[in-house]
């Protein structure tokens, strides 16, 4: 027998050569992996991918490491960022050079799960240093014999990482590891038991460390908090609070989102001596307090120029601005006051020795406290005076960053001390943990111009040919002139390319639990062929029960019910459904809070919906669309009304791809002409999209929104009910303009596979 020669497609040949790998199994998966990598990594990322894979293949640990890496990395990179690869490889090299080479495979195997739980480079790197710490402390030479042993615990921890990270923050993990190392350093067997979570104390320590409120678990609640109470929205991104005892990272926000600690423990204020009234702020409320503070800045603050201010002046401006935005937030929601008051430190007035240390922070924190807490006990005349002046300003309205800055500068001038410049600063009780770092408050006149780094490496495949049928032309609504542009848009229809139908079956298996639950709901919806309708005046037969009751009423002189007949009705569930999928480029982005792309989640959701509707028996069609100017709108047929949920349909679904833009109106009109031909009482068009209608040749963003709105109206006239499922958390701004009330926003895209069929069921029940 000869080794099969692997076919490497010509365009991948140069990558394959660079990989320089002789394992036949690698050759088998390479083309698929490489295609995925090319679709999702930057050019640089692709280079690094090959280079590191090559190293893993030559490490002398067989084919497994390179195989796992090739398959897993493109996915992982999406969640932790391509740059993280350096950190990971550095770590792998350390394992490789130590006696722990055997742990490399378990490490690589655990990496996808780990990245899902720790979705940022910072967090993942922190995790790597915990692992490194474990490795270094448990790899050893025993009894002075000149021989080294690998760490017994390390591979065990990798195998348990899913459980560990679902229960522990990184700080908790660190403590748990630390305990295991300290107690079982010299007991290989016990160490294995500990790190594989088999021993009782291992579980106990995990329980003990399992406290606090994790941001990943509170994301939905906090988004609701922002939206419901503040009408604000932003991505929430965790940073790990386990490290940096010195640097103490603070919350902040920038263009990408609001950064918050990954976990907050409940905050317990020691009860004053002699009482047992404990003040406790739950972790979730600490998040809310932090968000309220940050939203305060976003709502009421304005960046000012920093160039002419001294560092002390800036500190003072920040402190008073913090007080101002909080004051305004508490004016909206007075219930914030006790929370802020509990979290805000109370520096003792005499704590700072002004002859030995700089008291700037101390003074500012006292002032901040005095402003927050009317019952403060400070005697310092400046503190009292400026707290009063602050409140006088706020009595008049919202004040402003500029105005508060002037007050702050006066305060600095009035309270300046020689000792302020001493190298040692008084820190105790001056950290206000729920406040952000205020980086947004400052403008600098000398702008550095490296501001924007845009990801230009994104791939867009050149438009492959699909133009089988001649195009159909549709008009488009121009709201400026309130008229249609005739035959403005060309829609090309074609069969969606095919993939492997088994992939779709796998998705169904993955959601077996959900499918089971849905099945129960579907059974309730299923037409129960004949339904009896009672209480009919005229009907097909006499309803004996009712008739007898009526007769008795009649005989006894009471008013009899005349509705003594019953009839049967074929429970008409007579609905035709069209599911129209936005397949534009943006679907390739990773869904917030998930390691999957929106496309993948949509695919799962559509799979489950398709399966469910087939069970119900409603006529059902699926099509996708995207556009590349008005000359080229593509309408991709995935499932027709005449087709069943078979391998042909599944294979098209399996190959679902996203590119180009979203010219929604034309696609809806085209889909409508199929739906319209259906014989059904009710016609439902579901549009699944992740953003607003847009196309590259349409600069006025309003045009395509207005056109889609017009399309909805046209459909309504044709008796088609359109309904939009929108995955864009910011959709509030436009979706109701288009769909009126007929829409839902699914903020948490990860829940789409569940939400889509549920929505369908509730729409049609």
């Amino acid at each position, binding site marked *: 027998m000869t080794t099969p020669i692997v076919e490497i497609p010509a365009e991948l040949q140069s990558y394959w050569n660079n990989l320089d790998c002789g394992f036949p199994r690698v050759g088998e998966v390479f083309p698929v992996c490489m295609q995925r990598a090319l679709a999702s990594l930057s050019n640089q990322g692709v280079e690094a991918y090959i280079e590191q894979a090559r190293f893993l293949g030559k490490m002398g640990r067989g084919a497994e490491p390179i195989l796992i890496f090739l398959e897993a990395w493109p996915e992982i990179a999406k969640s932790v960022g391509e740059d993280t690869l350096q950190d990971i490889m550095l770590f792998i090299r350390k394992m490789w050079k130590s006696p722990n080479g055997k742990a490399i495979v378990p490490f690589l195997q655990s990496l996808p799960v780990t990245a899902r739980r720790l979705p940022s480079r910072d967090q993942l790197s922190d995790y790597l240093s915990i692992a490194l710490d474990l490795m270094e402390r448990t790899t050893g030479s025993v009894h002075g014999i000149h021989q080294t042993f690998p760490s017994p615990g390390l591979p065990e921890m990798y195998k348990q990482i899913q459980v560990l990270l679902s229960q522990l923050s990184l700080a908790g993990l660190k403590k748990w590891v630390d305990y295991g190392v300290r107690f079982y350093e010299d007991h290989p067997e016990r160490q294995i038991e500990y790190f594989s979570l088999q021993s009782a104390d291992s579980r106990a320590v995990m329980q003990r460390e399992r406290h606090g409120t994790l941001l990943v678990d509170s994301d939905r609640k906090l988004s609701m908090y922002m939206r419901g109470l503040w009408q604000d929205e932003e991505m929430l991104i965790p940073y790990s609070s386990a490290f940096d005892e010195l640097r103490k990272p603070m919350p902040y926000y920038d263009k990408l989102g609001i950064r918050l600690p990954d976990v907050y423990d409940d905050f317990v204020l020691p009860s004053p001596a002699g009482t047992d009234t404990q003040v406790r702020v739950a972790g*979730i409320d600490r998040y809310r307090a932090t968000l309220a503070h940050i939203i305060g800045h976003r709502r009421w603050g304005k960046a000012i120029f920093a160039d002419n201010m001294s560092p002390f002046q800036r500190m003072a401006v920040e402190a008073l601005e913090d007080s101002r935005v909080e004051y305004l937030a508490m004016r909206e929601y007075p219930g914030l006051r006790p929370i802020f008051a509990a979290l805000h430190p109370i520096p003792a007035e005499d704590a700072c020795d002004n002859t030995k240390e700089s008291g700037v922070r101390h003074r500012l924190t006292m002032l901040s406290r005095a402003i927050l807490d009317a019952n403060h006990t400070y005697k310092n005349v400046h503190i009292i005076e400026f707290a009063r002046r602050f409140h006088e300003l706020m009595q008049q309205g919202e004040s402003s960053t500029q105005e508060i800055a002037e007050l702050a500068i006066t305060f600095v001038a009035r309270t300046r001390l020689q000792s302020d410049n001493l190298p040692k600063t008084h820190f105790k009780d001056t950290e206000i943990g729920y406040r952000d770092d205020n980086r947004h408050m400052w403008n600098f006149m000398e702008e550095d111009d490296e501001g924007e780094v845009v990801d230009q490496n994104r791939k867009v495949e050149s438009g492959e040919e699909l133009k089988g049928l001649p195009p159909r032309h549709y008009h488009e609504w121009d709201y400026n002139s309130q008229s249609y542009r005739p035959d403005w848009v060309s829609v090309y229809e074609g069969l969606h390319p095919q993939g492997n139908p088994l992939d779709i079956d796998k998705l169904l298996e993955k959601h077996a639990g959900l499918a089971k639950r849905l099945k129960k709901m579907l059974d309730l919806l299923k037409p129960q062929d004949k339904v009896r309708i009672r209480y009919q005046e005229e009907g097909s037969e006499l309803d004996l029960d009712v008739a007898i009751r009526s007769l008795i009423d009649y005989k006894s002189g009471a008013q009899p019910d*005349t509705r003594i007949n019953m009839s049967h009705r074929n429970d008409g569930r007579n609905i035709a459904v069209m599911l129209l999928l936005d397949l534009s480029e943006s679907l390739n982005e990773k869904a917030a809070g998930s390691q999957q792309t929106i496309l993948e989640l949509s695919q799962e959701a559509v799979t489950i919906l398709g399966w469910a509707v087939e069970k119900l028996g409603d006529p059902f069609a699926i099509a996708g669309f995207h556009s590349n100017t008005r000359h080229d709108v593509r309408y991709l047929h995935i499932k027709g009304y005449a087709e069943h949920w078979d391998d042909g349909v599944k294979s098209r679904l399996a190959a679902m791809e996203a590119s180009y833009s979203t010219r929604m109106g034309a696609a809806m009109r085209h889909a409508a002409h199929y739906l319209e031909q259906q014989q059904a009482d009710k016609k439902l068009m579901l549009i699944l999209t992740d953003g607003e209608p847009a196309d590259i040749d349409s600069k006025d963003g309003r045009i395509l929104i207005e056109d889609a709105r017009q399309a909805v109206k046209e459909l309504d006239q044709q008796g088609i009910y359109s309904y939009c499922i929108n995955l864009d958390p910011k959709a509030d701004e436009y979706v109701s303009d288009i769909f009126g009330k007929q829409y839902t926003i699914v903020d948490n895209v990860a829940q789409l596979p569940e939400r889509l069929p549920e929505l369908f069921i509730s729409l*049609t029940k």
Partner: protein
Amino acid sequence: MTNKDQYKVGKEPFYQAQGDEVTLYEAAYAARLPVMVKGPTGCGKSRFVEYMAWKLNKPLITVACNEDMTASDLVGRYLLDANGTRWLDGPLTTAARIGAICYLDEIVEARQDTTVVIHPLTDHRRTLPLDKKGELIEAHPDFQLVISYNPGYQSLMKDLKQSTKQRFVGFDFDYPTASIEAGILAKETGVEIGLAAQLVKIGQTARNLKGHGLDEGISTRLLVYAATLIKGGVEVKAACRMALVRPITDDADIRDTLDHAIAATFA
């Protein structure tokens, strides 16, 4: 002949106008056009119709529609009595005879084969055929048909047919602006205006979450309930939780967020 006066709205109902709807309604009535009032539940649709009936000094006959309702429930039926059978007018027939405003509340709840009986009353014919009785009623000159429904029901099963919709002039209702809504609560229940404003704020929190897990926000009606409870001595936060949160959702995250909004608003 039925006594008209029993259907008159006796006392002036309190209605706080949100815009020019009162004048517009008067114009629609003057032309006897059928009216459709759309809006979320509990935003004041029924109160508005009641007020207009009072203002125009016309009888008002209200029918709360439901799924089991049949055409006979609207039009009328034969009843058995000791001497044989007797015809009894349904509410729609009565209204057409005496010249009342007939208000079909939440019309989408009724099955579509029921609602078609209103069609002949809504065009220029203004007639109502009583097939079983063999009578064709000409509507009284004062008669007017008003329907209400909530387009927020996100179900295509509960939408009106185009052929029905297109017979009406429409009023779009929504929850009032914050200050108007607070005014309504204060006037309606006697709570002081500051408290009313706080209640409205919680209502708006929920309305901001509409479409994100909530199908409908908190209605003016529920806010009135909460205010009534508070006026009756129930502790503020407990009243809010009971009247504003528990009825609208079972979603733990939303509940927690609204409970927090209550705690944050009423320090």
